[in-house]
């Protein structure tokens, strides 16, 4: 062996023995310590473990309430008596549940759910067995509590929606968090804790939830509380003020309810704040809070009219002739037509071998822009579309807010569709055909819009061309706390850069729609001159939807109805527009039925005049409106 290595091996061996001995000694210290704690002092620590342990328990924060723009309560919290079971405090979960079952109606499905929760969660976390007890049930369990180990009675708060079906789509509802939400958030595991599942409740869930408080309590080894040491009540959720006027909302819902499937949106034309937005059929969100039955859930889900969907933001329809103002703006702004351009309408338009018909068989004769909007001449707009080109039309439609979600603070908004040749190439793998530009020019074919988008488009037109974004909530602080974009919290009115004369030309044409006896909505005009509304009718063919919307949307064609969709967009008062609106009746036949709704709603809006008096600001909210 290498001599040098032998030297250092000798040193290393000697020192390794020293280190090894030290390690044995230190392990001995550990053994001694364990002996001291676990044998000598064991009885002391056993006592401590049994009697004197400190635990942290959460306090569920009170969910923020929701008000309308004038402070009317739309979502609130109600007292709710319930029975809880702490699994580890009962020896026999089955027997306890059986006993409770004698006093309360617990069906097998509920029972399975309870047993699943007990299986999944920590044994010391209480599981809700039944809630919304009547006082009699509550009292009868209360007297039997001594013979029911692990059973606790609690008073909780439950969400309540006084407006029921009328605001269901906007407010949404709350429910127990799913297993996916619960992960890594013990707060969500607490019995009775609810999170927003749709609508405003979902969109602003973080702000509404508040911050959990906690209590430090002494508990014994069974986890039962001995006494409370410290308490922090947490922060209740922020209250929210909506832009909605609940009176107008009620009126709109009731007016729409006469139809099978319909939606309507009324906006503040200047700011795009949503004053009323409704969709029928609807559902009662209170059913969900109370724990919806499977049968009811299936009934709602299987209904072909989709009561759970908010048609106003998720329904995608061809806009039909309500799209014509956009096409006219596109033509004017890019110079393809002049304000005085006229075309001859023989009742059809020929492009190559293809013939495109006007809705009026005999044709409109020589007709200008105003007349074409007033009487909704299709041939005029075939000409405009042909000259303007699909790219210019699509660009203009985007400036009006079509073809992508408007950015409203509600979840699940549909984007609609503004077709372009490159879109078609990608989506359908076929090239764009010239005739499709003409079809798009009258708002048919691939073009799809939501009722909200149509209302926003009308608002942007009637306010003189300002790019406003619709919003539901009036508290900037709440919006910021919930990570909503700054642009929504403090709206800016960016001009869209339209030629003012062009806008005025189209607005005056829309006035003719209701004021000229030849106008398509003359019969539905508002006769009181100070409330007069201007608008544009639209009829969208539903028959071809099936073919045209393959792969595009959720919209399902129902075989038993092949009637067209009726649409109407409008603003009022016609000379100084304050209210902009859009109404759609699915399979509503003629547009006149939509215009009839518009007549009633727009008149009511101006009578109620929500924009004429100041909205409640911060009075009802924790978060103050600071703007």
């Amino acid at each position, binding site marked *: 062996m*290498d001599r040098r290595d032998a030297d*250092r091996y000798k040193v290393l061996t000697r020192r390794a023995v020293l*280190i090894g001995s030290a*390690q044995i000694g230190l392990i001995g210290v550990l053994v001694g310590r*364990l002996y001291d704690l*676990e044998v000598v002092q064991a009885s002391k*620590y056993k006592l401590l473990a049994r009697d004197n342990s400190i635990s942290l328990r959460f306090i569920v924060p009170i969910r923020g309430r929701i008000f309308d723009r004038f402070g009317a309560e739309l979502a609130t919290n109600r007292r709710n008596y319930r029975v809880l079971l702490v699994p580890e405090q009962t020896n026999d979960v089955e027997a306890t549940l059986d006993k409770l079952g004698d006093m309360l109606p617990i069906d097998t499905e509920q029972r399975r759910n309870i047993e699943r929760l007990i299986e999944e969660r920590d044994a*010391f976390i209480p599981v809700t067995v039944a809630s919304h007890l009547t006082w009699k049930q509550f009292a009868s369990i209360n007297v039997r509590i001594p013979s029911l180990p692990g059973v606790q009675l609690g008073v909780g708060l439950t969400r309540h929606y006084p407006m029921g079906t009328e605001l269901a789509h906007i407010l949404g509802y709350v429910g127990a968090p799913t297993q996916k939400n619960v992960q890594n958030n013990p707060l969500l595991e607490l019995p009775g804790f609810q999170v927003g599942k749709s609508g405003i409740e979902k969109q602003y869930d973080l702000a509404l939830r508040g911050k959990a408080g906690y209590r430090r309590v002494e508990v014994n080894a069974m986890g039962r509380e001995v006494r409370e040491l410290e308490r922090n009540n947490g922060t209740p959720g922020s209250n929210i003020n909506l832009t909605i006027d609940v009176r107008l909302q009620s009126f709109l819902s009731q007016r729409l309810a006469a139809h099978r499937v319909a939606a309507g949106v009324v906006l503040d034309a200047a700011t795009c704040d949503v004053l009323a937005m409704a969709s029928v059929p609807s559902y009662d969100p209170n059913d969900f809070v109370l724990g919806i039955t499977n049968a009811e859930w299936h009934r709602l889900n299987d209904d072909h009219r989709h009561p759970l969907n908010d048609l106003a933001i998720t329904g995608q329809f061809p806009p039909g002739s309500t799209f014509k103002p956009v096409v006219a703006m596109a033509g004017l702004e890019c110079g393809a037509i002049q304000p005085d351009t006229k075309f001859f309408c023989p009742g059809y338009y020929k492009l190559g071998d293809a013939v495109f018909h006007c809705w009026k068989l005999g044709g409109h004769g020589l007709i200008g822009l105003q007349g074409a909007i007033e009487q909704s001449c299709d041939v005029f707009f075939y000409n405009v579309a042909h000259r303007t080109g699909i790219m210019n039309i699509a660009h203009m439609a985007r400036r009006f807010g079509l073809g992508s979600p408007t950015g409203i603070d509600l979840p699940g908004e549909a984007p609609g569709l503004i077709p372009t040749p490159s879109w078609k190439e990608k989506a359908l793998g076929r090239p764009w055909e010239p005739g499709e530009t003409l079809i798009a020019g009258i708002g048919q074919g691939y073009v799809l819009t939501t009722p909200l988008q149509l209302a926003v488009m009308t608002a942007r037109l009637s306010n003189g061309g300002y790019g406003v974004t619709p919003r539901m909530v009036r508290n900037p602080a709440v919006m910021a706390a919930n990570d909503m974009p700054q642009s929504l919290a403090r709206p800016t009115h960016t001009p869209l850069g339209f030629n003012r004369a062009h806008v005025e030309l189209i607005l005056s044409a829309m006035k003719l729609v209701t004021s000229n006896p030849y106008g398509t909505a003359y019969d539905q005009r508002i006769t009181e001159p100070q409330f007069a509304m201007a608008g544009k009718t639209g009829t969208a063919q539903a028959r071809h939807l099936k073919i045209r919307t393959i792969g595009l949307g959720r919209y399902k064609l129902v075989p038993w109805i092949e009637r067209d969709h009726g649409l109407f967009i409008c603003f009022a008062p016609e000379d100084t527009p304050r209210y902009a609106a859009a109404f759609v009746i699915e399979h509503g036949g003629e547009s006149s039925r939509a215009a009839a709704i518009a007549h009633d709603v727009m008149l009511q809006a101006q009578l109620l005049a929500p924009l004429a008096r100041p909205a409640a600001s911060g009075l009802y909210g924790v978060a103050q409106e600071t703007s």
Partner: protein
Amino acid sequence: MDDSFTHEPGNLPLARKLLVVNWGLVFLLCLVGAISIAMLYSAANGHMRPWATRQVLHFAEGFAILFAVALTDLRFWLKYAYVIYLISLLLLVLGDVSGTIGLGAKRWIALGPVQLEPSEVAKVALVLALARYFNGLPIDEVVRMRRLLAPLALIFMPTLLVLRQPDLGTAFLLSMIGAAMFFLAGVRWWKFAIALALVIAAIPVGWHFLHAYQKERLLGFLHPESDPLGAGYHIIQSKIALGSGGVFGKGFLRGTQSHLDFLPEKQTDFIFTTLAEEFGMVGGLTLLVLYALIFAYGFAIGLSSRNQFGRLVALGVTTMVFLYVFVNIAMVSGLVPVVGVPLPLVSYGGTALLTLMFAFGLVLCVSVHRDLRLPTRGGGSGSL
């Protein structure tokens, strides 16, 4: 004359290497691993999720690494010791710059999908680097002061980086590992005395650099009962868990302290309390005996190696694991302050486990190549 030996054993065929792997040590590691899975299952209230399942996967990966390292030529690790050390330093710097903050300290960096704790890697890298340095240094050179400047720098660089995070426990472990390696290499006794005196003198200065939570933990250790809801909480609850276990424990899955969530970090640093609560003194002693046997294997392998590099690696790794075990158990039983050191092979955590398996792979590698002789470079050329 030295060079002629380097061509000797070393190049065994793979099958032969597998036979000479120290299977006793592998078996002990498996036993401790089984205890780990059982305790993580219990810490999750009798569920495989979230920890036990993933720990099984970590062990599977760990054993793959272990065998890969064990079957590699020892000279490979000698050759790349400094490279590994530099990489570990780089990771520490990266962690310092971009690390995510966990529990008040920058300890983690994300390497693609993998969360890496650079300070874990640094410990093994330090052992490798020091072993390589002293492998090239005969005993008459080791006693010279100027020969010690380079290895001191090897210790200080990672230690200071870890202190910046700030992670007191790891910094302490790193310097202790370094000291042990110096000691084994043959550095004179009186130099350790001086170093110790310097450290004691530096304590009052160092106190000012501590974070508030670290001061709290240290003070809480000295007077736990003064603040039962604050800094002393961990220690009191942990001691109650241990003490209430008694001789035979409360039984598997029956520990009230851990299951009622009195214990923080019950799946990582405080996992020993769950074991001692549920299996009592008997359970705790069993684990300690298993550890002691692992250390014994480590020492035996180190002392039977024919090359200084292998001896230092085996003894260095063994000492490192011992320090982990001692500090962790002393910490949870209230003997030393809570510093955040996991219980090796038992605590939940990917990087720590994989690094340990890598380290044990090195020990096995030393064992496989015990007859390999490496040259001691004579004279003036210390190899840095």
